[in-house]
């Protein structure tokens, strides 16, 4: 079993999940309400917040997706376990 992950890892991951959920809900809403400015404002706010959270998370705990930046120049971090969905 890999070493237990710090509590911070789970806290930030849940924060990312929350932000992404709001983004997803608003995306579906905006598909049918393209002119709702309030929703567009909220969408942009949360989308930016989510990117910010992911940048902070990845700098601290490694890549979240395959396409993410590799933290070090020497070894490939993506193949190390655990993957975000395995925690």
């Amino acid at each position: 079993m890999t070493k237990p992950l710090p509590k911070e890892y789970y806290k930030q991951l849940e924060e990312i999940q929350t932000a992404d959920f709001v983004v997803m809900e608003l995306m579906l809403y905006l598909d049918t309400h393209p002119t709702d400015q309030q929703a567009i404002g909220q969408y942009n706010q949360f989308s930016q917040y989510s990117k910010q959270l992911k940048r902070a998370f990845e700098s601290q705990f490694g890549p979240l997706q395959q396409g993410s930046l590799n933290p070090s120049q020497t070894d490939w971090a993506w193949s190390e376990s655990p993957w975000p969905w395995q925690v």
Partner: protein
Amino acid sequence: MKSQQPFTSAKSYVPPHSPFDPCPPIGRKYYSTPPNLYLGFQPSDLPQFSPADALRKGTLWKVFYDYYDNPYRKGAGKSRD
């Protein structure tokens, strides 16, 4: 006329059972009628949950929250918030 029960999203009916039906009667069957059925085109600026709540409740807008309890499980009558 059936008595006017309070509005719930869990509805039920009893399918008719024929005397010639070899199988035992099914009894009461349940189906769910979530809020989105009663709300046509979604109006804008509906009240929302906080993001953390929204993740737990499964929807961003309060009006669409629909708690589901398995009616077939014993003692499933009580609805939890």
